[in-house]
């Protein structure tokens, strides 16, 4: 994505035309910086009930955004969880009020490195402070204050969204009635930090990155960002799923070409994933958000003992992992379950059999959806939501 640094007056920002925005703050970041005002861009589905008890906060993953269920304003593609959301659907908009906000550091309207720093009149670029999952959650908490919602019925999210769910439950326990962290971990593993570093280095190695100032120079590090996305995309799949979908099949040809064209379908697929991603995502946002995930370690934040993060919690938890997810393997969810057991928390946990890898949480997995539904129904009954 390469929007002009400052939109001309009177021109509506396409990224936020179909959602809400508000200036909130101040926000004290973990790095020590205090941001006086931050913009949060969010989208809601359904309506808030009279006693404001039916709000569900959906936390998006690394490259997700607030467009949960309606078309993405830049790409026109359906929302990332659109199959779940709707009247009478699993995420029933007649029953619950769904809120999905673009994360702090993101590039879809919430304050992030591509927005204008009010002090300089220029895009933040690398002068944007380094943010954490905790900062993202605190920005969302400001949004809840703004909306007048004291307690969320549920916080749900997969992958980095799941990290936010855990952070919500740990640092704002009284504001979370039920928590649904999916395909996630309480801390980013060495392997995952390693993959992120490959992605960041790919971006920074692109000469068009210009030390982070590409918006000022009118360039775009799309090659670096595209490589970052290609490498990351592999980690979201599984060997079995790749083999089933592509195998060694050739792309529109009957023989290999003895060259470096995309001979194989998998190469063509990854190149396509990379090139479509750069249309909608900002390279510096990718650096900042991956860093926030790397820094996440809920155990370290609590004296090295994960259970301390949840001491005395009254929140009902349901954790879900997938058998073929090697990015956030089941053992990570199990460690969270054990920590929750140690404080005698109310917790459910299912490892869903799927060969679709980490991305399974975004795909049609009937057993996963049945579990989501069952947990939400049970929690709604406890909360007195008819």
């Amino acid at each position, binding site marked *: 994505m390469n929007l002009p640094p400052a939109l001309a007056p009177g021109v509506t920002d396409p990224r936020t035309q179909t959602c809400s925005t508000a200036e909130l703050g101040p926000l004290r970041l973990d790095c020590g910086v205090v941001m006086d005002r931050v913009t949060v861009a969010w989208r809601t589905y359904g309506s808030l009930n009279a006693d404001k008890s039916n709000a569900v906060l959906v936390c998006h993953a690394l490259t997700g955004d607030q467009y949960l269920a309606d078309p993405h304003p830049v790409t026109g593609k359906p929302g990332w969880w659109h199959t779940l959301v709707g009247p009478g659907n699993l995420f029933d908009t007649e029953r619950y009020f769904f809120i999905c906000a673009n994360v702090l550091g993101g590039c879809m309207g919430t304050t992030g490195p591509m927005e204008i720093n009010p002090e300089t009149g220029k895009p933040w670029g690398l002068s944007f402070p380094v943010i954490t999952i905790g900062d993202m959650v605190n920005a969302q908490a400001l949004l809840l204050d703004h909306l007048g919602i004291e307690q969320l019925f549920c916080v749900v999210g997969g992958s980095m969204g799941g990290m936010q769910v855990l952070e919500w439950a740990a640092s704002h326990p009284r504001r979370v009635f039920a928590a649904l962290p999916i395909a996630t971990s309480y801390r980013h593993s060495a392997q995952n930090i390693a993959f992120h570093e490959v992605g960041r280095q790919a971006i920074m190695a692109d000469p068009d990155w210009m030390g982070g100032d590409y918006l000022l120079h009118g360039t775009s590090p799309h090659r670096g960002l595209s490589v970052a996305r290609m490498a990351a995309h592999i980690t979201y799949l599984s060997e079995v799923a790749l083999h089933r979908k592509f195998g060694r099949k050739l792309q529109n040809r009957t023989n290999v070409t003895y060259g470096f064209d995309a001979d194989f379908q998998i190469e063509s697929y990854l190149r396509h994933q990379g090139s479509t991603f750069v249309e909608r995502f900002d390279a510096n946002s990718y650096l900042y958000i991956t860093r926030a995930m790397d820094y996440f370690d809920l155990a370290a934040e609590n004296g090295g003992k994960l259970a301390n993060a949840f001491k005395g919690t009254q929140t009902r938890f349901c954790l879900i992992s997938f058998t073929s997810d090697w990015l956030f393997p089941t053992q990570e969810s199990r460690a969270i379950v054990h920590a929750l*057991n140690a404080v005698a928390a*109310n917790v*459910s*946990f*299912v*490892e869903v059999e799927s060969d679709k890898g980490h991305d399974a949480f975004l795909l049609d997995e009937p057993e996963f959806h*049945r579990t989501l539904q*069952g*947990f939400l129904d049970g929690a709604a009954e406890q909360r007195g939501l008819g």
Partner: protein
Amino acid sequence: MNPSQLRFDLRMIADMVAPKTRVLDVGCGEGELLKFLRETKKVDGRGIELSMSGVSGAVRQGLSVIQGDADTDLKDYPAQAFDYVILSQTLQATRNPREVLEQMLRIGRHAIVSLPNFGHWRVRLSLLAHGRMPVTSSLGFAWYDTPNIHLCTIDDFADLTEAIGAKIEKGIAIDSSGRTRAFTPPDWKANLFGENGLFLLGNK
């Protein structure tokens, strides 16, 4: 939920549980006992179950159940977290029954254990008369594919409770036609005619 809808052995376990207590059901399947206890005794129940279908079936009923097993998932709970920890027809399939039983009595004030009795006369007869590993209604597997790796008799189990310093508060022998008899071990009749044993244990 009507008591008659609940499986016979689960109903007997349910009878041992006092109302409004905290219960952990280890190997809870789809949670039928937990659901029954919640509805009839207002019990705050949790479950552990090995199979995905069992867990998701239980979660669908609004129960709090985690996927796991008795050997690995008991050690994390704090001491005395529950009033009852239930293990039905599973102890003989655990890798380390002694440790499992010790953990149950650490995290619970009581343990409720039911198990197939390897001292039952049919089992003895099968070995004595035919020289074959017994396959009976409560032990329905051939030796090479049985999950039951740590079988014991009612008396053996009573010895184990003694060894770990537990107290048998109630012992019930259930014969092959479902008749029940309360007993205090050692009890040769229970050990010979009980096809299954059911125990309520407490800490000494």
